[in-house]
């Protein structure tokens, strides 16, 4: 019962370095999301995907790219890391429209445990 798994859990980058955060879900969910959470603040949507091969911009997409080549994986890339990208990153997945039944099992968004990224 893995649910949503994020790797890595922690990372320190130097300014200008690149890296990719991986999110994997084993629930066959169509929808996947990447959020960032800064200290004392809520979650802000970076990018999201409504299915394999699709991506869309969220509230704060600048400086990030994403790819959804496989349904179970949603990758978040930082091409040239900046100190402003120091944050905790959360991935989530959900089924939403896959079933018409209203209930927690079908509509709840499941979250990973987060990736703490520091850019120095």
């Amino acid at each position: 019962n893995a649910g949503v798994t994020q790797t890595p859990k922690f990372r320190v980058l130097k300014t200008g370095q690149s890296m990719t955060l991986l999110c994997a879900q084993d629930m066959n969910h169509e929808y996947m999301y990447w959020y960032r959470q800064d200290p004392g603040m809520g979650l802000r949507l970076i990018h999201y995907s409504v299915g394999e091969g699709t991506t869309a911009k969220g509230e704060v997409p600048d400086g990030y790219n994403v790819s959804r080549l496989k349904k179970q994986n949603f990758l978040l890339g930082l091409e040239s890391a900046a100190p402003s990208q120091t944050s905790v990153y959360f991935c989530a997945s959900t089924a939403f429209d896959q079933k018409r039944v209203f209930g927690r099992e079908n509509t709840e968004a499941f979250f990973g445990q987060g990736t703490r990224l520091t850019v120095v």
Partner: protein
Amino acid sequence: GESVGLHLPTLSVQEGDNSIINCAYSNSASDYFIWYKQESGKGPQFIIDIRSNMDKRQGQRVTVLLNKTVKHLSLQIAATQPGDSAVYFCAENSKEYGNKLVFGAGTILRVKS
């Protein structure tokens, strides 16, 4: 607990009292709402959800109220316990806008023993 800016508002309650956490959502087309609880160092956890064709839904010790007229959502926690201390977020989703799940600012709940 209304959002007052970039920093999360805090609601302090006595153990055993009822808590009410409020959330103002932004999109009148949102048709699905979820309350999440986030404990320190962890990802958000589902508490309860409600669709826009309802105005109230009850769970175990929790009730969510939806007022679409003023775009307001509230979470009521009965007999608040120390384990309820966490940050609470509301999230809104709109199928019309591509199921872009957007979170509100959050409220810190502190339970005093």
